């Protein structure tokens, strides 16, 4: 239980990775690293598909990412009708790990360019929910 507090609309409440949300609430963006083989995952994985181990360490993501791809959504799915327009995006961190999320509405759409540097910022949402978004570096 607990993971239903992640994001604008949640679709699942139970995961072994619920700590991700607790860190977000504390203002930290974290992900997992396999304790045995060192593989870093995003999204976090509590089990390693490279070496098969189930022991992980939580590590902070504080590097800047580079914008790889984005799209500004004008018609949202059910539950997001009042959120539009918003921009979903993938950024790539220096270690090659990619993160999916939204670009902050504080960045005008016309200023968004593939290749721009963005930082990941934990945010609070209404109804005690938490998420993260991409902001100007």
């Amino acid at each position, binding site marked *: 239980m607990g993971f239903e507090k992640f994001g604008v609309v949640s679709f699942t409440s139970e995961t072994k990775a619920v700590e991700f949300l607790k860190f977000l609430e504390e203002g930290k963006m974290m992900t997992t690293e396999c304790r045995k083989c060192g593989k870093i995952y995003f999204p976090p994985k509590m089990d390693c598909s490279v070496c098969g181990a189930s022991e992980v360490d939580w590590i902070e993501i504080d590097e800047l990412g580079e914008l790889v*791809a984005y799209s500004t959504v004008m018609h949202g799915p059910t539950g*997001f009708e009042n959120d539009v327009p918003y921009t979903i995006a*993938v950024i790539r961190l220096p270690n090659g790990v*990619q993160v999916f999320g939204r670009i902050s509405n504080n960045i005008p759409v016309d200023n968004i360019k593939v290749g721009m540097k963005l930082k990941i910022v934990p945010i609070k949402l209404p109804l005690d929910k938490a998420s993260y978004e991409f902001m100007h570096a």
Partner: protein
Amino acid sequence: MKKDVAIVGVGQSPFYRKCGMAVRELCFMGFQEAMKDIDLKRVQIDGSIVCSAAEYDKQRSPASVIVDYLGIMPAPSFNLETLCSSSSTGVRVAYSLIKSGLHEVVAVIGFQKMSELTSHEAAERMGRGGDIQWESPFGVTMPAYFGMVASAHMAEYGTTPEQLARVRVKSSIYGEINDKAVYRKKISMEDVLNSEMVTSPLKKFDCCANADGAAVVILASAEMAERITDKPVWILGLGGSTRSTALAGRLSFTSVPVSREAAQAAYEMAGIGPEEIDVAEVHDCFTIAEIVAYEDCGFARPGEGARLIDEKQTYLGGRIPVNLDGGLLSKGHPIGATGASQIRAITRQLRGESGKTQVEGAKFGLVHNLGGPGLYNYVTILGRD
């Protein structure tokens, strides 16, 4: 040429915005046309695979209801789903059922009746099309996934909205003369470029639409094919690939990795290369998807797909004609039926039955069928005697 398993019958219903009939009746239309190709007295279908995206079905486990209505009982049947590539996956499984010797004649029945859901229900399902744990909470949509691909392709290669629009213009030319297509109106460059923005940089006419429809492919062993048809179309290559639903795990945004991997596997099995393909059907759920498919199938080098449409090389008479039935953009996209409809189009091309859109002397054809925004791809290469 490898002659293990042949396509002996293909059929489809018209694709509709709203069909006004039951799913089983829709499937019968596709089955009826497919059975016209076969000498009925000499064939017994001994297995069937019913393909649809179950999230759109009202009927739980529709296989039994459908095969009952079509009269192909008690042959074993089951449901199969890989989203938009369901019926191409069905053809892959049918091939293995026949090649193993377990079955001699198998029907692959693809369908979707998308009008059965309200637009609210459809939008709810679309939201769950992403990784529900990590990405759907941000508000994901299918068009937005391809909007992201377009943004990356434009940034990397300079692809333009005009080049995307050219794909829709081509589609509308062939859609206009396909009596099974939903959209049968010519669309101009201006129509596409001036249409409403759906998700940047994709506009309304860059996107295909939901539809109702059914399509059927009947496959047989070589021995059986000889007895029941004089125009067998052989399965030469089958390639498949699966990749992460989460976009964070995606290896490339300027290509669709599953498509590239599936095409490569299919070419390897067929023992031919892209330059030998005479005609193709690619999964043009969005205009950008067709341009990227040209590259992923090896018809153009990475970054040069848009040039093919600029030069009209994918028109009839061009170097590699693509989607001469109007593709998903004009036919509409009834998820589970799409792959079988694409395979029907190429089968008819190889039999010389495509009328005004016939590629003269076509010997090898390729079908590229994507599942979701890049979760699955199943590529099928077909050839004739």
